[in-house]
């Protein structure tokens, strides 16, 4: 990968500097790919705003609805600015094993005509924006684990530091030319970078902050699940851009990625629903939408590599396993992951990342991709496992360090009074009626 500024006119660049990227040719804009990626980028942004904002807001109690919405909104703003300043550069500029460089500081060199070597048929503006939408939703996902009890200022510090110290390195390692990409880890749209990453960070955050006041005694049932259903519906549709766009092209692989994404979501929704029905007596609405998200998160790393059969299987396993992780397992271990970020995204991401190793097929993803089941390459499963472990360890430890730092300085939690009376009124001076 090139470390030079890629915004210079390509023709001038070719004449001046020789670099590995240029040796592969400068790339040529394809209008079909570009059209799809522009749409896909908007779809992924739709997943955060209003998808995730509504999904999370609909699952908290009435007194915290606006505070929860504010978390996603403010995170979108903060991550966007940080991504422009250094995030994009550290992730996608320079091919270092551990981190990128500052070559694209402030997105320097990004012009109407520039092309990034990772996506040679679309404008760099679209590539950089597409990647930005992933950087937005991942930290915002983490906040579900600490809903109802985190200070707004602490939340902002956490999001900024987490983006730069956890998300950016992980994305670089898997997608930006880092060591996990060199190892051949398969993560099509972010099973590791997005879902395991956010899931383990959510678990650590839930433990560091401690449970909500009166957790296990008070009724913490959602105020308005219709909001959450609308949110998940937007996530579900937006995920077509999330996974379907990760081919960075409008082609058969993108179409296959979309198809398996929908199949896994539907299967997991059904699986969670049935598992809950059988064990708890009622198929809850919260359960059905949680199952859908579990299926979507699980198929994310495997989409683009697998066909419809594995999608059904991954959806089935994700629905049942994430249900168990979000209910019985959570209860047994005693942590309060408010909106089940770990149970749904962490566990789902692990299932899908392993599933990618097992079911990745060269007939779908091209000759360089070989999985266990169809191509007999068992080593791929171990490679996937390495990616999972690296993410769990890095994200888990750095999240813990960041949160302990914030705890020691400005503090993490709101006061008891603020928590009892609600964050909407105390943190934002507003409330829903």
């Amino acid at each position: 990968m090139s470390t030079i500024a890629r915004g210079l006119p390509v023709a001038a660049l070719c004449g001046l500097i020789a670099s590995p990227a240029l040796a592969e040719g400068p790339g040529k804009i394809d209008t079909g790919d570009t059209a799809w990626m522009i749409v896909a980028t908007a779809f992924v942004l739709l997943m955060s705003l209003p998808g995730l904002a509504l999904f999370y807001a609909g699952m908290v109690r009435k007194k915290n609805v606006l505070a929860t919405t504010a978390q996603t909104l403010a995170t979108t703003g903060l991550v966007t600015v940080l991504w422009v300043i250094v995030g994009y550069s550290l992730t996608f500029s320079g091919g270092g094993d551990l981190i990128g460089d500052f070559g694209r500081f402030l997105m320097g060199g990004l012009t109407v005509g520039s092309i990034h070597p990772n996506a040679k048929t679309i404008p760099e503006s679209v590539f950089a924006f597409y990647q930005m939408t992933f950087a937005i939703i991942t930290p915002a996902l983490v906040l579900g684990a600490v809903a109802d009890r985190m200070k707004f200022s602490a939340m902002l510090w956490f999001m900024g530091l987490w983006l730069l110290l956890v998300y950016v390195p992980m994305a670089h390692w898997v997608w930006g030319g880092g060591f996990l990409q060199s190892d051949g880890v398969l993560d099509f749209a972010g099973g590791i970078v997005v879902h395991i990453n956010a899931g383990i960070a959510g678990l650590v955050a839930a433990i560091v902050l401690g449970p909500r006041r009166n957790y296990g005694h008070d009724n913490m049932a959602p105020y308005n699940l219709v909001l959450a259903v609308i949110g998940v519906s937007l996530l579900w549709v937006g995920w077509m851009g999330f996974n379907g766009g990760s081919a960075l092209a409008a082609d058969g692989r993108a179409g296959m990625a979309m198809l398996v994404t929908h199949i896994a979501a539907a299967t997991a929704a059904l699986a969670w629903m049935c598992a809950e029905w059988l064990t708890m007596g009622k198929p809850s609405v919260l359960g059905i939408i949680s199952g859908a998200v579990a299926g979507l998160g699980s198929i994310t790393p495997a989409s683009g590599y697998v066909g419809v059969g594995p999608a059904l299987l991954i959806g089935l396993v994700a629905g049942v396993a994430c249900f168990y992780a979000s209910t019985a397992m959570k209860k047994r271990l005693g942590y309060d992951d408010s909106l089940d970020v770990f149970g749904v995204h962490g566990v789902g991401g692990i299932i899908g990342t392993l599933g990618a190793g097992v079911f990745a097929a060269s007939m779908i993803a091209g000759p360089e991709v070989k999985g266990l089941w169809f191509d007999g390459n068992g080593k791929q499963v171990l490679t996937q496992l390495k990616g999972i472990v690296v993410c769990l360890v890095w994200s888990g430890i750095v999240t813990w360090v960041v949160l302990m730092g914030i705890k020691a300085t400005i503090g993490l939690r709101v006061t008891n009074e603020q928590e009892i009376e609600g964050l909407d009124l105390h943190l934002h001076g507003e409330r829903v009626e």
Partner: protein
Amino acid sequence: MKLITAIIKPFKIDEVRDALTGIGVMGLTVSEVKGYGRQKGQTEIYRGAEYVISFLPKVKIEVVVSDTEVERVVEAIKKAAHTGKIGDGKIFVWPCEQAIRIRTGEAGTDAL
């Protein structure tokens, strides 16, 4: 005259109203209340988290009747609100000193 106060399950209110109308009770007052009796609320589980329902929703009926009507009214409420399961509620009978219809100034059982 007696004031009859009954705490019943909310879904039984229509049956109780029909029963009372059927025996000639001319009016009653209803309010939504919360409380607990011997069952002391319940522990429920939602999404892996236990919670205690300390106060269960109930409906409170208040109706004033003449002394001769008390037994029939109590019987009607008892029958209509009965499910046989825990939490069916209670009926209380109180002495009522006076009743006055505000519009006409009528007093006593004439005001009922």
